[in-house]
């Protein structure tokens, strides 16, 4: 069946390449993430919250 629907010789290689590229992206992202210090993480995570100028609005709801 596979042959009849149109099968390219050796195309499975695309799947393997794709998975390897993803593995690369994932590992780089993981390393990158782990190199960040706790303070940096906290600082970044708090970016949306440190909105001093919005103080008055904050309290209302």
């Amino acid at each position, binding site marked *: *069946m*596979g042959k*009849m*629907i*149109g*099968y*390219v010789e050796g*195309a*499975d290689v*695309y*799947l393997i*390449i*794709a*998975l390897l*590229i*993803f593995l690369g*992206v*994932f590992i*780089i*992202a*993981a390393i*990158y*993430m*782990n*190199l*960040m210090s706790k303070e*940096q*993480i*906290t*600082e*970044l*995570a*708090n*970016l*949306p*919250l440190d*909105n*001093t*100028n*919005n103080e008055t*609005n*904050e309290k*209302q*709801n």
Partner: protein
Amino acid sequence: MQKETFNYDNKIVRNFAVATAIWGVIGMLVGVTIASQLFDPLYNFSSRYISFGRLRPLHTNAMIFAFVGNAIFMGVYYSLQRLMKTRMFSDKLSTIHFWGWQLIILAAVITLPLGLTSSKEYAELEWPIDIAIALIWVVFGWNMFGTIYQRREKHLYVAIWFYIATFITVAMLHIVNSFALPVDLFKSYSAFAGVQDALVQWWYGHNAVAFFLTTPFLGLMYYFMPKMANRPVYSYKLSILHFWSLIFLYIWAGPHHLLYSSLPDWAQTLGVVFSIMLIAPSWGGMLNGLLTLRGAWDRVRDDAMLKFMVVGLTCYGMATFEGPMLALKNVNAIAHFTDWIVAHVHVGALGWNGLLTFAILYYIIPRIYETKMYSKKAVNVHFWLATLGILFYAIPMYFSGFTQGLMWKEFTVDGMLKYPNFLETTLQILPMHMLRAFGGTLYLTGACIMVWNLWKTARTGKLVANEAAEAYPMVKEVKGEVQVAYWHRWIEKRPTQLLIFSFIAVAIGGVVEFVPAFLVESNVKTIPSVTPYSPLELEGRDIYIREGCNNCHSQQVRPFRSETVRYGEYSKSGENVYDHPHLWGSKRTGPDLARAGNTASKIYKDAGWHYQHMKDPRSTSEGSIMPAYPWLIAEDGDYSKIEGKITVMRKLGVPYVENYEMIAQEDLDKQAEKISNFLLKEKGIKVAKEKEIVALIAYLHKLGRDINTKEVATSE
């Protein structure tokens, strides 16, 4: 250092909020209308402009690009200014963006009911509107990057990463999928044909879900969830991993819309594997959002806004678990083409996009109007109506989907199809369709209450069009020590890098899938007996596109016994090489039509039957929910553009002989006359050859004819 003072532009946020609410209600109203047509077609009130095939694209476009689109811009304009501690880059660009987008939607509202459509799902708008979309999208990006470059905050919070990835990916998807050659201002043919067109279309279609309905909303979730809960996101590290994995994996998953089709196997496998891997980042993101509420769950009880967020995220979790399951080949074999898929997308659209949008509206409006919500009770009522609406929508549709999937495949002990008449399976699910329309009505009612409540809220307050703010200017980094210490923080501060890397991440998937599919000859096996459409058939095909028949009928027989017995030989990629665009469809509200012209197929009907059926489907198929098309019988076709159409098709590679366009009209007349004569002589039906029905019949009889295995001579 001195703090600088500046203003946030709340007016543009308010404008997008109003547009979100209005288009949302309109889009849902259209949704309830077409839902009603699916248990009684009379709800189209015999008007061609609101017939199902024309109205469904309006519904999907309105929900995706008008409701969700405006919601994205509302949320982005609100959060971006505050995260970057600056006003939007240019008020002028904001205004152009706002009005440009509304005009595009208006153009959709006018052209789609008129039947001006490219037929490509979620990209139906014709080429001039496509160009306008691209331009306005660039204005949005320009304004966003301008704002980012003039920021006072060094770091780019993860929400902005999602916005940037959204911008660049949507631009890429839209431009590539819209490649087409125009015939005139209102008509164009896709540059791609058949299986390649399908691949590009679903690479686009799937990633419209990913990068229009998901990534921008994840960005909004990462901003508004912490704001509403008043605590930082559960894990910022997780959000980084979430971002890169999600954008990288999503782009590959498109082919899961084409399982068991004539798309090459390797591409289907890629789609399956990446879809399954997508569970990880999707659930990572959902948990990250929900866990942000750790220690604040008591507030969820009293704060309806947080309830919307929690149920919205839960729906996201359900839809992103279900998606990969649907991508498994054995599940897909049953679920594809059925109402199950419709249930699936609505859990995502009503649950995730809808509920988050409502929460954000309830957050923003009282703040920019410096007041409180007019009625907290009404917010609660809205929450329950929306939640019940989703349940009443989804549960019947799942049930309907299973029913269709199983009935289509069921054989008797003697090896015959248990339900050889497709109509039986349709009649079985009508009660489910009624319940679904009820669910939709509940959801719409909730939205109307919200509009009223927001309106009242705005009336009690006053818009703070320019909200005063202050912040320290951004310090320029000195080269040297700072950079060494923070070398690995580079991307948080470099929007351009982020843009480039996101683009690379999303481009890889497209390139790996497209290049072989387009270059390797053997991917599309040509079939010598398959010939281009005759002029009359081509015109008939354009009528099929105009009426949006592809919104109910597929043209792709999958290689299962249940389908080959019902419809005939399964579809091969070589059959569609002249199909600009492909018309495979994605849903079988009616039977597959790929073999409608193949006399060996059980689905084959003669011209007389088609005439009666198109005039009044219930006359041939009692209880059918297919709309009637009396105007095809009453009106003459406008074939004045046939010359141009043939020329464009030839430019796209369809092998019409040289100068064929000169005699196209003549050929068209000849073929039409043959059909008209057949109807008169054999069936006693008097139809002038100029009528549109004649062209449509010619087209239906072309479908699958070229691979006719039983050479029965029939005169149309």
